[in-house]
């Protein structure tokens, strides 16, 4: 493991940024990015679960028998998901309502389980923390960018502030399902072009 902790963190921001490089966690990506705020909120909630579960899995990696490791990971993740759910209900009720069932669904977000299985169960505490944080921040950024694009085109605003002036006729289409798929597809295409150099 020649990689430093900083490198583990950085790879989540570009090299393995979800959901573009790792095509995982698509459902929340598509569902909650109707606005930049929702996207970032979802990203932060996922980051919290990702970091906490990565840490705990890494600490417990010697104890959990490998045969039942996946159910154990799921329980760990579910615990943190309930925590985040209750926290959001208490402090950011509006966001909690907006995100709806997608908060409990973090538990089945393949990114979280994927990192626990692929990284945290094989690495020490600090790299796992850095990995979780990096992937989480990358995911938050992606959701934020996608949310901004969809919100600005679909509602004419970003974080609730109007961007195109009063005469702008919003593309209703962008905040609906077809817009979600297409925006993500085209963003992926742009990422491919950038990645190719």
């Amino acid at each position, binding site marked *: 493991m020649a990689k430093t902790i900083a490198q583990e963190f950085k790879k989540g921001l570009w090299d393995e940024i979800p959901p573009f490089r790792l*095509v995982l966690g698509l459902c929340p990506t598509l569902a909650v990015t109707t606005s930049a705020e929702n996207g970032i909120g979802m990203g932060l909630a996922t980051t919290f679960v990702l970091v906490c579960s990565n840490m705990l899995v890494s600490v417990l990696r010697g104890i959990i028998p490998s045969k039942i490791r996946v159910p154990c990971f799921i329980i760990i993740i579910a615990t943190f998901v*309930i925590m985040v759910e209750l926290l959001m209900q208490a402090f950011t009720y509006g966001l909690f309502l907006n995100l709806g069932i997608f908060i*409990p669904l973090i538990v089945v977000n393949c990114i979280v389980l994927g990192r626990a299985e692929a990284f945290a169960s094989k690495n020490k505490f600090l790299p796992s923390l850095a990995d979780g944080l990096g992937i989480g921040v990358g995911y938050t950024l992606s959701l934020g960018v996608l949310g901004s694009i969809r919100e600005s085109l679909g509602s004419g605003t970003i974080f609730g502030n109007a961007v195109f002036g009063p005469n702008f006729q919003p593309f209703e289409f962008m905040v609906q399902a077809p817009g*979600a798929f*297409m925006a993500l*597809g085209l963003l992926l295409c742009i990422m491919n072009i950038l990645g190719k150099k």
Partner: protein
Amino acid sequence: MGDFTVLIISSIFINNIILAQYLGACPFVGTSKKMETAVGMAGAVVFVLTMAGMITWIINTYFLVQLNIEFLRTIAFIMVIASLVQFVEMFLKKSIPALYAGLGIFLPLITTNCAVMGVCLLNVQDELTFLQAIITSAAYAVGFGVALVLFAGVRERINLGRVPSPLRDTSIGLVTAGMLAMAFIGFRGMV
């Protein structure tokens, strides 16, 4: 009876689980490259989702609500679904090996399929009765299968075409899915 027809139609087409509700997008993209895989996956989802809808409804109504511990719903559901998938896998392997050969490899994928978990949560959210819950779950699963198989068919053809390289694979797949979603918006007028 008419209510059930509406429920089924709206669950399959109007509120299609992938194209309108955004649930199960990962397997939708992942298993749609080949028609054969798509059909297998669709079958497995129908099977598991119906069962999961049934059992989670029972758990929710008779335990969580009764004991007033709804906040444990997530952990309870995921445990039940994971166990159910395991159980189904073992059951099929022993009792119906032919079906296992067809669906078996897709079963583990379903544990982390948010469509299953999502539908169970939606059933609770919409406060459906037991019968409604079963029918909705099955209809959603059929909707998933329909979308997946349609999408796989389109995708197989697209892969024959000359797609600009940055758009290739998942990228063009998502754009296509967008168009499919647009087509499904057309069903809104049905009910």
